[in-house]
């Protein structure tokens, strides 16, 4: 009732005045716009220039270059700018190389799953169950402590762990669970997955824990008050609200795992060849055109993966 009376009063007395006012301001704005357009435009261009030039020079041009080089002709120890699809044909007709592409995708999917399976509960604990913000930070820092040692050492440390006479086998034997050492632990896809999971899980934990810690506890209370049990609350409130964190974590892990070569080199005994390993080998033997083909394929795979992940969540809205 009050509202209608208010709005009536406004329209009776104030509407004409308000209209006149708005017309005047509009005119003024238009005049200002006319005189200011050119200078405003040049300012915008100037502000945009450094970033644009940087991205063109160091991102767009190199990428186009890579695509271009992938069509060059490969000679034994050099490449010539004569365009050919020879390297592309070589990649897709070779069973080894195409298998490497499939293996890369397979390892990536497995590592994505394991990092999520290990990372989400960890993040849930840090982000939701630890209420103290200081303690939260301390625990998150603890997750990062392994990064203080070199990447190579962290990877190689898995060898004495998983080897035939490694820690895992010794413990299992001492416990009487196995009679002879399990040999498939090391130098298999399994060891590569274990190594990558350990290294990359923290990139999953961080973003998810961040999103979880931002969930207002009163939302969970409200859901509880409305009759939902713990599992329901997790499914309908907590998980959906943490999804942007999952997507960001998945992007981190994907980009790093898809380009990986060191972990597989160190823990597979050169038996597991990923696209990254092929690039390293090809560059090592100066096969630039072929390396470029693999590079283009890898970049394309990553682009598709990231585009697909971003479909899930509007990150610009969430962060």
């Amino acid at each position, binding site marked *: 009732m009050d509202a209608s009376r208010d709005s009536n009063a406004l329209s009776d007395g104030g509407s004409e005045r308000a209209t006149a006012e708005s017309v005047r301001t509009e005119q003024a704005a238009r005049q200002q716009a006319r005189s200011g357009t050119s200078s405003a435009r040049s300012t915008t261009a100037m502000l945009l220039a450094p970033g644009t030039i940087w991205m063109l020079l160091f991102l767009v041009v190199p990428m186009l270059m890579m695509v271009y080089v992938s069509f060059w002709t490969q000679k034994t120890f050099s490449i010539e700018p004569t365009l050919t699809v020879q390297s592309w044909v070589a990649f897709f007709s070779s069973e080894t190389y195409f298998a490497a592409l499939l293996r890369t995708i397979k390892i990536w999917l497995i590592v994505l799953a394991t990092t999520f399976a290990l990372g989400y509960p960890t993040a849930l604990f840090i982000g939701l169950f630890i209420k103290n913000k200081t303690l939260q930070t301390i625990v998150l820092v603890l997750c990062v402590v392994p990064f203080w040692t070199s990447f190579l050492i962290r990877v190689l440390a898995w060898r004495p762990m998983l080897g035939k006479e490694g820690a895992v086998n010794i413990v299992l034997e001492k416990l009487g669970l196995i009679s002879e050492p399990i040999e498939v632990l090391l130098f298999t896809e399994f060891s590569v997955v274990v190594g990558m999971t350990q290294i990359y899980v923290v990139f999953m934990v961080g973003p998810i824990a961040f999103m979880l810690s931002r969930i207002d506890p009163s939302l969970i*209370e*409200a859901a*509880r*008050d409305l*009759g939902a049990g713990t599992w329901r609350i997790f499914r309908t409130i907590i998980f959906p609200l943490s999804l942007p964190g999952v997507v960001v974590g998945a992007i981190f892990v994907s980009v790093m795992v898809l380009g990986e070569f060191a972990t597989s080199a160190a823990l597979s005994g050169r038996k597991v060849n990923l696209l990254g390993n092929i690039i390293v080998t090809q560059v090592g033997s100066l096969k630039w055109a072929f390396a470029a083909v693999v590079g283009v394929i890898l970049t394309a795979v990553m682009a598709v993966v990231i585009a697909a992940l971003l479909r899930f969540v509007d990150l610009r809205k969430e962060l």
Partner: protein
Amino acid sequence: MTAVLELKNVTKRFGGEVALDRLSIALEANEYISLLGPSGSGKSTLLRIIAGFEKPDAGDVLLEGRSLAQVPAYRRGIGFVSQGFALFPHLSVFENVAFGLRNREDDPLRDGAALRRRVDEMLGLVGLADLGDRGTDQISGGQKQRVALARTLVADPKIILLDEPLGALDANLRTRMRVELRRIRQQLGITFVHVTGNEDEALAMGDRVAVLDRGRLAQISDPDSVYNRPESARVAKFLNCYNMFEGRCDGDGVFQTSGASLSCSPDGAGPGMYCVRFDKIKVTPAPAASQAAGTGIQATFITSEYSGPRITYFFRGPGEKVLEVEYHLSHQRPEEFSVGDEYWLSWLPDEALVYFQ
């Protein structure tokens, strides 16, 4: 009337702090209770204990005679509307309201058509019929409040707990929501418990007003009794409309306070608090004081505050004590007092309330 909810000797401590101290209170069916208390008086804790978010250290909470001690929050059938509304940001208005029916553990509503009908009906009741598809970031503060209310009401709770429901709204909206809340409650005939730190709001909203003080129930009665006959000096203080003088009375009808002797009714003796309401005081120029009618005190005019229907004058009495006098302008025009001049503030001894310790 029957008590729908009863608290018996409920005690709650946080660390060493006592939040609730053997509090007992009975809420009747179909009434609007406002719970008034300063911050730290335990009113939010009380609400959270009723809702089941906190467990009492001692005492019991009974809903329709049944103890709630072993009943988890999600099975209590008590609606809780939190201060910040706590709307689910990833769900639409409709989905927010449908949340409880869809996701409750006991008897969730799976029938889509029935769900839609009930949610739409509730959105209509709170005046949001057309906004079901909106996101929670596309509606105003007042509308958020209504969504939070609808979300709770749709499950037919026996009691609704409102934690400072008007605190997050601007003044204009607050007045409108007061009317709305009372209308919705009357329409549904359930008990509303409205926590507030604002005495105006408590008096305006409640069929009964419960005043909490340091974890105890200081008074529970109808708004008129709370306002006119507060049961203790502390209740009078929360109401923020009484001038209070500390002193003592020797049973002779004279209350001795620093710098003045005030008349009061002759029964009662000992140290105490003498209270007189802002709007019971009459101001006359000091020299021409006719002391025949009533008792009074001499004070210096400081300033005044105009607030539409009334004006509040501030005086400095004996011992630098600031005294307030309120005139209601529908009956009188504001008087002009000059700053720094002495005036005689007088009232009838019957109007004064004296609380002995």
